[in-house]
């Protein structure tokens, strides 16, 4: 894209104006909650805009204990990670199979892809009963299997694009060398679609991490509870102490934010590639 040379003032004003607007809308609420979390509850309600009279770092200590954030994080990480692994495995296997298959396989592929547009929130009742009948209710596996199923069509779509991009010559020469189906999959295809797998991993991880409805429906035990469900319970756990609740909210956001700052190149790259291929 053209650089900054000779950009007219009207453009600059317009561009920065727009950016400033979105910046304010994004940053101000976050700033407000951080400052609010350091006030006393009374002060928070009286004067939302001032800096804290006393810096109540004790709010954070209380919030951490009451909210049991460590447990929440561990659960979300476990559920998300396992679901990502499962999803990558199943989607890549299916994508490879379809790419090797004939018209029937193509048809099956198209049907499965259509699942992307199914609003999964409408499947509350059946999903609940499926997990119940499989004996998975109130275990992490209820979420892992459900999330894998929910993210599967999109994952399949993305991975398939990458699989098809593998040059035919490589596959043919492997076949001539005597490579079998599974071998080709494991040692040739998988390494070549690494960036595609990374893309899917990003999408699927985000899906799992932020999911709320099914986490609410399918689990209850506080040992299994994911972060999102935990956050929704803050208002009951911090009965009238808003400041501590703000602290809990801030703490619940920080890890993702930090992780993102550290990995942003990869995350955005993943989304970018997925968008281009998809």
């Amino acid at each position, binding site marked *: 894209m053209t650089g900054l040379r000779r950009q*007219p003032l009207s453009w600059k004003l317009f561009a920065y104006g727009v950016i400033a607007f979105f910046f304010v809308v994004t940053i101000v609420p976050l700033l407000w909650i951080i400052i609010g979390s350091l006030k006393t509850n009374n002060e928070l309600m009286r004067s*939302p*805009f001032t800096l804290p009279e006393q810096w109540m770092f004790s709010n954070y200590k209380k919030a951490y204990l009451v909210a049991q954030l460590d447990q929440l994080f561990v659960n979300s990480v476990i559920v998300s990670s396992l679901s990502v692994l499962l999803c990558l495995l199943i989607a890549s296997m299916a994508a490879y199979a379809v790419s090797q298959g004939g018209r029937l396989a193509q048809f099956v592929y198209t049907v499965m892809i259509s*699942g992307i547009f199914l*609003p999964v929130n*409408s499947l509350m009742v*059946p999903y609940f009963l499926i997990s119940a009948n499989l004996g998975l209710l109130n275990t992490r596996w209820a979420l892992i299997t459900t999330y894998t199923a929910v993210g599967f069509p999109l994952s399949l779509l993305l991975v398939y694009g990458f699989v098809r991009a593998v040059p035919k010559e490589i596959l043919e020469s492997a076949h001539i060398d005597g490579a079998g189906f599974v071998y080709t999959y494991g040692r040739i295809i998988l390494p070549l679609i690494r960036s595609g797998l990374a893309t899917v991993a990003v999408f699927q991880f985000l899906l799992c991490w932020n999911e709320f409805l099914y986490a609410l429906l399918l689990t209850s035990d506080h040992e299994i509870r994911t972060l999102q469900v935990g956050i929704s319970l803050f208002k009951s756990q911090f009965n009238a102490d808003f400041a501590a609740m703000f602290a809990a909210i801030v703490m619940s956001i920080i890890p993702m934010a930090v992780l993102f700052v550290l990995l942003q190149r990869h995350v955005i790259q993943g989304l*970018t590639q997925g968008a281009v291929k998809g």
Partner: protein
Amino acid sequence: MRSFRHKTSILLFLLPAVVIFIVYYLYPVGFLVYTSFMKWDSITPMEYVGWANYRRLAEDGVFHLALRNTLLWGLAGVFLHIPMAMLVAMILSRKIAGWKWFRSIFFMPNLISTLALAMLWQFIYNGEFGLLNEVLRLVGLESWQRNWLGNLDTAFPALIAHWIFYIGYYMVIFMAHISTIDPSLYESSQIDGAGIFQQERHITLPLMKPAVAVAVLLVLTDTLKNFEAPFLLTNGGPANQTMVMSLHIYNRMVSYQYGYADTLALMLVAIGAFMVIAVRMLFREKEERGG
């Protein structure tokens, strides 16, 4: 022999995917259809009631509101959220100072918990001590203060507003797409005297069409699933003004009205299908017209 083994391998590799699809997609939709003809509280056996649930749809005022809101949210997504994302994407793609930082900052809200954001905005909108009212007071617009989430006219717009400006997700997708556009196109048009606004209109926009098509589909299906925000911020109120389909289904479920809940769910699936078909048709037309 080899061909047979090959075919078996294909089948085996497809198997897990197919099993998942049947269990989590085909069976549930079938289940929805089946139970939509039943009255069922999930404890006692199902009772066949024919078209009664469907007739109830016609009389159910809450369903009408939920339907209206769900559709409105989708429209807001398509006609407000996406254009804003496109705008910011186009601006940042021009690599103004600090564009990489802005890209990260704008993407951040889409990353962190939607619930946390919702809770945050509940406090911003609060009628007694919320941030928004406080800001209005400071700029002298005290008359504009109100109980945003408890007011019939402002509740739903406020609900949408807390989400609509966080355009990071689609912005990144658009920026990715724009980055694949050949820079020489811009250079040559600049030589021809085209200003920045003209360049964007005639080069960037048309080339973004495929990405926009995908984004439109994604945002539509995404807004259909809305649950967290209405659940937490307003619980569908006031007077069901912010009710959405997912929440209505959930409420029926905890009222032991599983049969009717599934009928509503089936309607949601139908809306989803309808939207996909509509968008597909619209965008195919545009392509044919050489847009």
